[in-house]
């Protein structure tokens, strides 16, 4: 039975699903656009060290860099219209392959060309992120983002992180009004 988290909450995946190594992180949303332009939300993952920064550009997994160097994190591809029920985009994580110097993986969603298209998260409803155990397809945890975030164009949905010997999942739901650039810079990427 999936555990539902509220903002700021965390839970232990090692306790909820002992032995789980292959995880599907599913992200979904409903987009309502008032001006007819495509509403293209992109999920990404950032592999972060204990200091909260990436080791290299290759730690930023997104639609143009689908797989991490060690194969531990794999993005399953870009959905450009939000069509389809359930997860709109998904990122697979093999917890057993995540390198030892990676302490956290942040899962983010950004709006493609948000400024040019004058779009923001205020137009997004029913956003969620969930953890699915790939061994048995069961949903282990879920965070439904409830709040409006009308000035933000990039959002950190949740994090997978190490806590001692365990892997945990934390509901974040915090964003940046400036979009992908300040978000990526906060993780140590340089443009």
């Amino acid at each position, binding site marked *: 039975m999936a555990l539902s988290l*509220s*903002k*700021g*909450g*965390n839970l232990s995946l090692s306790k909820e699903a002992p032995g789980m190594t292959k995880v599907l992180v599913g992200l979904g949303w409903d987009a309502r656009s008032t001006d007819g332009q495509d509403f293209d939300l992109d999920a990404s993952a950032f592999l972060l060290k204990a200091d*909260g920064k990436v080791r290299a550009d290759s730690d930023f997994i997104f639609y143009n860099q689908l797989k991490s160097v060690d194969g531990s994190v794999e993005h399953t591809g870009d959905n450009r219209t939000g069509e389809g029920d359930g997860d709109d985009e998904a990122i697979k994580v093999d917890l057993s392959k995540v390198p030892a110097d990676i302490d956290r993986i942040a899962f983010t969603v950004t709006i493609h060309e948000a400024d040019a298209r004058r779009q923001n998260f205020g137009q997004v409803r029913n956003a969620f992120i969930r953890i699915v155990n790939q061994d048995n397809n069961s949903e282990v945890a879920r965070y439904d983002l409830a*709040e409006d975030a009308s*000035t*933000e164009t990039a959002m*950190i949905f949740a994090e997978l992180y190490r*806590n001692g010997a365990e892997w945990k999942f*934390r*509901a*974040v739901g*915090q*964003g*940046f*009004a400036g979009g992908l650039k300040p978000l990526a810079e*906060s993780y140590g990427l340089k443009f």
Partner: protein
Amino acid sequence: MAVSLSKGGNVSLTKEAPGLTEVVVGLGWDPRVTDGQEFDLDASVFIVGENGKVLNDGSFVFYNNKTSPDGNVVHQGDNRSGAGDGDDEQVNVNLSGLSQEAKKLAFAVTIHEADGRKQNFGQVSNAYIRVLNKADGKELARFDLSEDASTETAMVFGELYRNGEEWKFKAIGQGFAGGLAPLASNFGVNLG
């Protein structure tokens, strides 16, 4: 050796720091990098008597009342964003100067305007509260607020209490809904 406390944990200071006379309560957190209002955490100390209530209103030491009437508990100042390395707020406590009426010191941490700002400890990065032995700077106890108090907005971290000639520390980790005001009322402070 610092004891890292999870909820309900306990530590006896008798062996950790025999003859403890002064402690520092340290509160730290990372400033917010995401959009939204700053995370403003506040440390406070309640000097409590036999009946579990503050000795007087001045015995509630916090950002608007930085020095206790006897001068033994001194708040070093309000940090409103978490900027700066190490502890962002500190309260110095001179145990040896306290009157015999003072039976316990309760240490609390709250998020300023948590309800209005819709914030909780889990949203703050690297928030902790700890107790140091002032004599040698050694950490006696520590609580990870971001991890273990994640959906709380106010918390009584622990208590120092008299045991004969010595002071012992009990970890509490009890959350409070509603913030600093109900927490202070709980300790008998008249908020007027």
